[in-house]
C-alpha cells in the first residue's frame, strides 16, 4: 500500500499542557488506523493539526512525499482530507440530499441550484456506501446513525482520500456500529484511508489494520490487532508505567453517614440514585461520558436541582438552592472544566484561593483586606505545593497541574466536609496527578468525605473505597474490596456499551 500521510515529530504546546510531544504517525491508502488515547492524551490536537485547524509548533506533515510545516484548512480539504467530528457538523434543517451533495449546491458560477444533480450525487454516494436513506427527509429528524451515514456520504462526494472520524462509536447504538464497520470496509476497498480517533475502540478491532496509542501527548507505539486484547489496549492508554498501588484509606464503616442520598432523580438525567458517604470514605463514580455522573455532582452542589429524592447531611435533610448554600453546608465541587468553571485565569493566585472564603473573612463592613487574602493563599499554596514564585502571579501563568492545585486550594480553604472532584486529573502531568491523589487520601484521613468522578479507572481503583458504576443515569453496579480492580471495572463498562 502506498503511504498517504506521514507525521514526523509533531509537537504542540498550549498554556499549561504539552498536548503533543514528538509524535510520528503514518497511514497508507486503504488502511484503517485506530488512534487510541484517553481524555487529554493529545488525540484531538493531533486531529486538529491534520485538519489544519491548529499549527504544530514543530514537526512535519508529509502528504504523498510533499512536506508541510503546517496545513491550513483549505490545504487539508484540497488534499482530500475529510474530518467527521463527534458532533458530525451536519445541517440539521436541510434534507439528506442537501447535506450529502452540499458541494453541488455551493458550486460557483451558477445562478441556481441543480436539484437533479444534488439528488443524483447524493443517491450515488449512498449507493457506494451500501446505505439507503430517504433523500428528502430533514436530517435532524433522523437518528444519530443515519446522520453519521450522511456525513460519511458527504465526505465521499468531496473526493475524500483520508477520512478522519472523531469518536465515531461513542454515541452509536450497537446495530449502527455494524453498519458503520460495513461502510468502512467499502471505503477501504475504494483505497480510502480511514483514521479513527477514539478512546473507545473495542468495536473497531474487527475492521482495524493497526492501532496507534497516544498517552500524555506521546505515541506509545503501533500495534497489530492480533497482538492486542481489550485489556492490554486499556492499560496502554491509561499507562501501567505510572500506575500507583491500590491504597485506600481505612475508615470506620459503622460511622454515621456524613451524606446520605436517597432516590435522587432528575428527569432525563439520572434517576433513583441512593448511597451513603461516611466520614473518611472515598467513593468513586465510573461510567461513560454522558451517563449522568457530572449531573449528579452538580445536583449535590446546589446547581441542577433534582426533581425528587432526599439529601441528608449528618442525618438532617438539606436542599441547596445555590452553590453558596452547598459551600456553607460544607460541600464543595472541583468541577471538570477548570478553565471555565474553576479558575479566574487572569486574576492572581491569591485572589483565586481566597475567593471561596470572602464571606468568612469579611469584617463588619463587608471588607476584606489584601493581607488576609495573602495569608490564606500562602498557607494553602504551601500545603498543596503550588509551584509559583509568588501568590501575586496570575493563575494563567501556571502549568495545568498547578492550576488544578489552585482550584483545590480554593476549596480546601473553606474547610469542607465533603469534596466532590469531577475528573480532577485530566490533562495534567504525572507528578501533579500523584500529588492530587495524595491530597485526596489526606482529606479522607482527616475524616472528610470524598466523591471522585473519573474516566481513569486506575485513579478510581487506587484511591477509592467503593466505586459505583453509573450507567444511563442509574447506579448499575458497586465495586469494593477485592472486586475493585481495573479489569473488573473495564469489563463491566464494556458490557454497558
Amino acid at each position, binding site marked *: 500500500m502506498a503511504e498517504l500521510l506521514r507525521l514526523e515529530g509533531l509537537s504542540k*504546546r498550549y*498554556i*499549561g499542557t*504539552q498536548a503533543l510531544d514528538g509524535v510520528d504517525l503514518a497511514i497508507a491508502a486503504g488502511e484503517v488506523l485506530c488512534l487510541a488515547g484517553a481524555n487529554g492524551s493529545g488525540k484531538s490536537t493531533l486531529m486538529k493539526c491534520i485538519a489544519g485547524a491548529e499549527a504544530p509548533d514543530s514537526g512535519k506533515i508529509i502528504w504523498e512525499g510533499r512536506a508541510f510545516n503546517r496545513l491550513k484548512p483549505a490545504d487539508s480539504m484540497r488534499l482530500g482530507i475529510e474530518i467527521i467530528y463527534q458532533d458530525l457538523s451536519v445541517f440539521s434543517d436541510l434534507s439528506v440530499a442537501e447535506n450529502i451533495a452540499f458541494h453541488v449546491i455551493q458550486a460557483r458560477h451558477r445562478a441556481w441550484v441543480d436539484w437533479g444533480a444534488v439528488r443524483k450525487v447524493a443517491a450515488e454516494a449512498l449507493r457506494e456506501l451500501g446505505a439507503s436513506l430517504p433523500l428528502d427527509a430533514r436530517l435532524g429528524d433522523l437518528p444519530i446513525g443515519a446522520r453519521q451515514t450522511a456525513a460519511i456520504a458527504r465526505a465521499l462526494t468531496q473526493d475524500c482520500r483520508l477520512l478522519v472520524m472523531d469518536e465515531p462509536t461513542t454515541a452509536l447504538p450497537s446495530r449502527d456500529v455494524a453498519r458503520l464497520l460495513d461502510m468502512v470496509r467499502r471505503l477501504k476497498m475504494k483505497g480510502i484511508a480511514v483514521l479513527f480517533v477514539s478512546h473507545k475502540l473495542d468495536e473497531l478491532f474487527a475492521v482495524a489494520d493497526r492501532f496507534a496509542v497516544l498517552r500524555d501527548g506521546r505515541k506509545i507505539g503501533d500495534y497489530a490487532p492480533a497482538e492486542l486484547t481489550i485489556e492490554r489496549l486499556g492499560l496502554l492508554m491509561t499507562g501501567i508505567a*505510572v500506575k*500507583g*498501588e491500590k*491504597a485506600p484509606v481505612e475508615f470506620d464503616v459503622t460511622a454515621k453517614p456524613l451524606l446520605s442520598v436517597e432516590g435522587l432523580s432528575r428527569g432525563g438525567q439520572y434517576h433513583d440514585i441512593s448511597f451513603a458517604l461516611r466520614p473518611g470514605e472515598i467513593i468513586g463514580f465510573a461510567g461513560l461520558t454522558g451517563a449522568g455522573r457530572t449531573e449528579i455532582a452538580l445536583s449535590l452542589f446546589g*446547581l441542577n436541582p433534582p426533581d425528587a429524592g432526599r439529601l441528608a447531611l449528618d442525618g438532617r435533610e438539606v436542599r441547596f438552592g*445555590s*452553590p*453558596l448554600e452547598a*459551600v*456553607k453546608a460544607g460541600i464543595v*465541587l472541583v468541577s471538570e472544566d477548570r478553565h*471555565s*468553571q*474553576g*479558575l*479566574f*485565569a*487572569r*486574576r492572581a493566585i491569591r*485572589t483565586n484561593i481566597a*475567593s*471561596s472564603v*470572602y*464571606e468568612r473573612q*469579611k469584617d463588619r463592613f*463587608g*471588607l*476584606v*483586606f*489584601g493581607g488576609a487574602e495573602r495569608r490564606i493563599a*500562602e498557607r494553602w*499554596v*504551601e500545603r498543596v*505545593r*503550588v*509551584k*509559583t*514564585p*509568588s*501568590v*501575586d*502571579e*496570575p493563575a*494563567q*501563568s*501556571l*502549568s*495545568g*497541574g*498547578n492550576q488544578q492545585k489552585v482550584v483545590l486550594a480554593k476549596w480546601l480553604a473553606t474547610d469542607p466536609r465533603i469534596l466532590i472532584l469531577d475528573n480532577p486529573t485530566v490533562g495534567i*502531568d*504525572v*507528578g*501533579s496527578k*500523584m500529588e492530587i*491523589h495524595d491530597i485526596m487520601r489526606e482529606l479522607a484521613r482527616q475524616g472528610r468525605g470524598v466523591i471522585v468522578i473519573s474516566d481513569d479507572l486506575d485513579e478510581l481503583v487506587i484511591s477509592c473505597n467503593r466505586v459505583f458504576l453509573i450507567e444511563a443515569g442509574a447506579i448499575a453496579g458497586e465495586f469494593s474490596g477485592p472486586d475493585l480492580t481495573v479489569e473488573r471495572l473495564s469489563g463491566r463498562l464494556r458490557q454497558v456499551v
Partner: protein
Amino acid sequence: MSGEPRETLPVVAKGARKRMPGRLDEESLSAFVLYAMIAAVLVLISAGLGSAFFNPANLGSVLQQSPEFALLSLAMGLSMVSGGIDLSVIAVADLAGILAAKIMTTPALLELVGQTGVMALAVVAALGAGLLMGLFNGFVIVRFGIPPLLTTLGSMMLFAGLGSGLTGGVGITGMPSGFVGAMSAKLGGVLPLSFCAVLAVFLMLSAYVRVSIFGKSLFLYGENKVAALFTGLRVERTLVLSYAICGVLAAASGLIMLARFNSMKVGFGDAFLLEAILVAVLAGIDPNGGRGRLFNVLPTVLLLQCVENAFTIASLSPYAKKMIWGGLLLIFMALNFFFRRIVARRLTTLAIRRQTAPSHEAAQATGS
C-alpha cells in the same frame, strides 16, 4: 513508587523570582500606557500653546467642566466591570435632574421648608430616584436574564419617556440661587467645589471596590461568570448593587448638570453616552469585564477636557476638532490593545516554560 515520600519541591522559592519574572500585570501596564499618553499630550499642548493653556484660569475651567462627565463615565466603567454596560446613565441623570428641578421650582414646597430645605429634599429625591432606577436595571438583568445592553437600552427609553411625561418636553429653569451658586463655589478660592466632591467620590468608590466583598465579587464575576457561580459568590446581589451604584452616580451627575445650566430637560447630555463608553475603555476598563481600575477614569476625563480646551484656545474649526478627536481616540485604543496582546503573549511563554520545568522533575521522580 508512589508510596515513597517524594522530595519536597521548592514552593515559594526566592530565587525563582529572578529566573522567571512573573508579575505581568495587565492593569498596571494599561495604567502606565494611559499616564504616558497623558504626559505626551500635556507636553504637546505646552509646546504648542504654552501659557495660553497653562494658566490658572484655564486649568480651573478644565476642572470646572469635567465633574458631570466624570461621574457618568465612572458609572459606565462600573457597569463594564461585570462585563455589562449601562446605556441608561444619561436618561437616569436627566430624570433625576428633572425631579430635583421640579421639587426646587414648586413654590408650595419652597414656602413649606425654605430654600435650604427644598434643596436638600431635591438632592435626596434625585439620588433616591437614581438608586431606584439602578435597582430596577439590576433586578431586570438578574431576574429575567436579559443582557444588560438590551435591558438598559429599554430602560433608557422608559426613563426618557417618563421625563418627557413629567415636563412635556420643555426645560425647567429658575433654580434657587444657592443651588446654582454651589456649582461655582471654589475651595480655597482655587479648586472648584464640585470637582473636589467628584474626586472624593472617585477615591471612595475605587477604594471600596478594591477591598469590599462586593467589589472583589464584581471583578471576579466579570472575569469568569461561570466560575463565580461555581465559587459560591453572591452573584445576583453583587450585580444588582453595581447597577444601583451606577444609578446613584448618574443621578449625582444629573444634579451637577442641573446646577451648571440652571435648567434641565429630557435629552440633556445625550452626546455623553458614547463618549462615556470610550472614556471607560481608554481608562483601561475591559469591556469584556473583570479588568481595570475605576480611578483611572478621572485622569482620562481630565485629559479629554484638556484636549477640548486646547482645541478651543487654538481656535480650531469644529471639523478639524472632530477629526483630531477621533484620531486621538483610535491611537489610544490601538496602543492599549497592542500592549495587552504583548502581555498575553508573554504570559503564554511563561506558562510554557513553567510547564516544561515540572515535567522534567516528574520524569526524574518516576525514574523514566
